[in-house]
């Protein structure tokens, strides 16, 4: 029972990161109308930037965080014209093409990370980032500061995001575009500007996720992005593409299931079980459990 509770705690912190990732991914999908497959790779690149800056500044957390967030926002904004251009060439919204462009970006980021940083070896973050020893320890059950940060920031960030989406003017613009882009344009909502805001916002979320992942995992490798990318899109599909509430439920559930399985089955097999569960659900319900929103 102790193992189960310990793994549920691990799962909640991991799930908090998944739900942030899915939220950022869905925001781009709904407002910018792109399937940003490389979004998790952008997050992993930001983790590498945080690692670099921490190394150069003697583990200055503030500068590391700022660099991570800035790089994520910048990368997202740089990619915006590419996606716009693809859609212009097609003369229509074509999320499949944007997905392929995004996969190309993912290939570039993954290979640059595997060649250009730390001679291709995985990177390790300083212990100070994870916050040191456990806050609570009862037998096998322990709560680490990194887990508390992940859960706390996850809850605050998602709450702030939903507040922004449902209680503010830019949020209404986001929802209007997600609902009906042509209608939104007719009532005077600037599609390009709002689209760019969604890139910046998802970039901001990406920077935060990079920091949380660094604190929770303590290390990163170039292959991390691909693995997380598959999970994020799988969560998004299981929830129903573009379904924000579904993404929250499924993201958190996947984190918990994955952690619980890891508690009982060793290493790589546990990941396979998570993937098999995702596969079965996708095969059974390709349009998602909560319904498509695009």
């Amino acid at each position, binding site marked *: 029972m102790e193992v189960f509770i310990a793994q549920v705690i691990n799962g909640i912190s991991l799930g908090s990161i998944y739900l942030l990732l899915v939220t950022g991914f869905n925001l781009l999908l709904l407002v910018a109308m792109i*399937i940003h497959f490389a979004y998790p790779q952008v997050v992993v690149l930001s983790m590498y930037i945080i690692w670099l800056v921490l190394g150069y500044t003697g583990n200055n957390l503030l500068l590391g965080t700022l660099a991570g967030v800035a790089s994520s926002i910048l990368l997202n904004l740089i990619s915006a014209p*590419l996606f716009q*251009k*693809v859609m212009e*060439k*097609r003369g229509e919204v074509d*999320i*499949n*093409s944007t*997905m*392929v*462009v995004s*996969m*190309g*970006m*993912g*290939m*570039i980021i*993954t*290979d*640059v990370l595997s*060649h250009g940083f730390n001679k291709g070896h995985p990177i390790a973050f300083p212990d100070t980032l994870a916050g040191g020893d456990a806050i609570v320890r009862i037998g096998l059950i322990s709560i680490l500061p990194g887990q508390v940060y992940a859960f706390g920031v996850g809850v605050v960030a998602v709450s702030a995001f939903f507040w922004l989406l449902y209680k503010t003017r830019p949020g209404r613009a986001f929802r209007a575009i997600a609902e009906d882009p042509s209608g939104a344009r007719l009532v005077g909502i600037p599609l390009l500007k709002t689209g760019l805001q969604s890139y910046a916002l998802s970039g901001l979320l990406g920077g935060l996720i990079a920091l949380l992942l660094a604190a929770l995992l303590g290390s990163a490798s170039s292959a991390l992005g*691909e*693995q997380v990318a*598959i999970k994020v*899109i*799988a969560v998004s*599909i299981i929830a129903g*593409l573009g379904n924000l509430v579904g993404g929250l439920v499924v993201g958190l559930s996947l984190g918990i299931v994955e952690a619980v399985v890891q508690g009982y089955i060793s290493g*790589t*097999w546990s*990941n*396979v079980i998570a*993937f*098999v569960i*995702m*596969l079965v659900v*996708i*095969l*059974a319900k*390709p*349009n998602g459990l909560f319904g498509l929103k695009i």
Partner: protein
Amino acid sequence: MPLPLYYFLSITAVNILMSWALYVPYRMAHLHFLVVANMAISGYAAAYMVLSLHLPFGLALLAGFAIGAAVGFLVALFIGDAPTFAVVIVGFTFIYIARTVIENTEAVGGTMGLFGLPNIGGDPAVHRWTILSILYGLVLLVGFLIHRFDHSQLGRAASAAFIDKDLTTSLGIDIRKMGILLQTFSCTLAGGCGVLYGFIYKSFHLDYFTFHVVGILMTFIFVGGYTTLWGAVLAAPVLYGVPLLFPPEIASWRIVIYGALLVLVLVLKPEGVITTRFVYRVEALLSRKGLKQPPSTNP
């Protein structure tokens, strides 16, 4: 035949066939990456049959095709009419699961891989010519079949489904059946390619069946042109061959080069280098030349 030329020719043929395996279901907008997982599953299964059960190569190759077809068909029953992104994720998930299962299965060499596949016919020269003959025979056969498909009612139905699935359904076309057919065909092809790929190097290692392969194949069809089968025929030898001429420091960045090419082509020329219009123009030119044949000398 020099060994580098043999490897270039054989891997180019595998690349063309695998690009076509992606091309066929993409005619109805299904990016079916299950083909890469199928390549690994069929290849490892066939290698196990040859090494442990001492089956002859021919039977193992047939088994590879059959395993590919079976896996492809079973999965297609569920995702024959699924949206593109769901098909993509099913493919990626399968690659990950297949890799992990193979990695942890000692009977197929685990992380070390499988080595010591025998020469077909005993002699290395016979082996190489046999592999090349089978591969290029397959290229001709599959190329002919895809050409016929592209010019058939089914091909036009797939083109319609690429643009608008709902409209295609309303015209009475069974999207699910078409998806099952195209996905099964592509997986069958991938199964055979997996076996042949292993017999080219006479070994199997999981390093080949990574997400990089997906990127490379995607680059071949999108840069070459995804609207016609000729795109892969042009892109596979050029994109695989040119980096081989680069100095090692640059060649090691070839995935970055592929990624950049992929993004650039999709942004600047979304249909790729060889377009349907280009192919029609060439076909028209050839048929006009055919009409202008010199008159017969017979009275």
